[in-house]
């Protein structure tokens, strides 16, 4: 379980990019092309290596006027999934 003050970052070789031929965002990694769902995309757009999980959750809570506990759960689950694929660094 990641601490709330930990800072996620996309490692080298993992890129969030707009795919203009298909008109949606993609997360590119080693032998992987993932199409993030709307929630995942909002999380990914806020990952820059300087923001902590706490700050990302706070931002999402305010932007979407949603329940903080639920958002924290979503963010953690998403980060754990990426971490299992070795597609995120969390420091």
């Amino acid at each position, binding site marked *: 379980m990641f601490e709330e003050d930990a800072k996620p970052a996309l*490692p080298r070789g993992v890129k969030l*990019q707009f*795919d*203009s031929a298909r008109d949606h965002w993609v997360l*590119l990694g*080693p*032998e992987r*092309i993932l199409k993030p769902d709307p929630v995942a995309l909002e999380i990914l757009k806020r990952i820059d290596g300087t923001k902590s999980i706490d700050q990302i959750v706070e931002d999402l809570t305010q932007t979407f006027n949603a329940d903080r506990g639920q958002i924290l759960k979503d963010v953690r689950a998403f980060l754990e999934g990426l971490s*299992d694929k*070795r597609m995120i660094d969390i420091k």
Partner: protein
Amino acid sequence: MTVGSTDIPAPMGLLAELTHRCPLKCPYCSNPVELERRSVEMSTDDWKKVFSQAQALGVLQLHLSGGEPSARGDLEEIIAHCSTLNLYTNLITAGVGIPKERWQALADAGLDHVQLSVQAPTAEANDFVAGFDGAFRAKIESAGHVTSLGLPLTINAVIHRHNINTIEDTIELAASCGARRLEVAHVQYYGWGLKNRQSLIPTREAVLDCMAKIEAARERLSGSLVIDAVVPDYYARFPKPCMGGWGARSLNVTPSGKVLPCHAAETIAGLTFESVTEKPLAEIWYESESFNKFRGTTWMPEPCRSCDRREIDWGGCRCQAFAFTGRADATDPVCEKSTFRNRLSEIAEADAAAEEAFEYRSF
């Protein structure tokens, strides 16, 4: 979709065989038995044009392969070009003959990922399979340079009779090299692999044992090493969806510029392939006879035509079907519904019991 006027999807990936030159001599090499010579290789500008066209066509990831792609002195320049196009670059290399400075230059050019082949987990076994003394040491040094530059590393291991029993050591090696990913592939039996099937194919027991060891390692190394592995064709019930379907997701360009739906497509007699030096990539992808020949499901005979897996495996591999049955539109002989399946099992068993020495890949 902005390109193409049909319901044919745009390709996601492109495998570029930049050259067929390679210092190693793996007996299962996926290059054609008739290798393309240096004199017919495309120029730097030709390749740049191919990648610009690929990007416009919708390609997201490039697999820079060979042969040994670093045998081309313009690899850095090609990668830098791709990186300005926002194409994801994956370098598929044997890791031999690439000093630290060159790795630095490749990283600076914007390389995204390195996939390094390891033939076996010890120097002796590795160099025997590769037919090259000192290859193992060079690979380990390359792995060190790659990870210290912060580039993500995948170790690729092609499995056969001579290394299947040391799979656990291969997994350990990948983990200790700092790889994020290990890709376990099996020899495919066409081209060089077919020549050497009697000396490479493992027994069913060895394959099952290997799969079990991989499964155990996956759990143990979860979160540190991702292991992608497939069951080898010959011991599966159904074929794999080769290339995600013919002309469905990716394409392959040879050193001279021929565009193929899969790297082995030239083994199918009677198909002709067009070249990017003569036609735009998009036209070849959408309109060429070779790409349209086995696209979708309408070309399928029975039992595929009415099978509920037809859009899962797309009838399997056309090259294997041709190699085994003499017909490129036949059901993949691996499939349990194929009338050739029993014959294939018999051959696999007989070859797995044979004691032949292999023949190295050679120019």
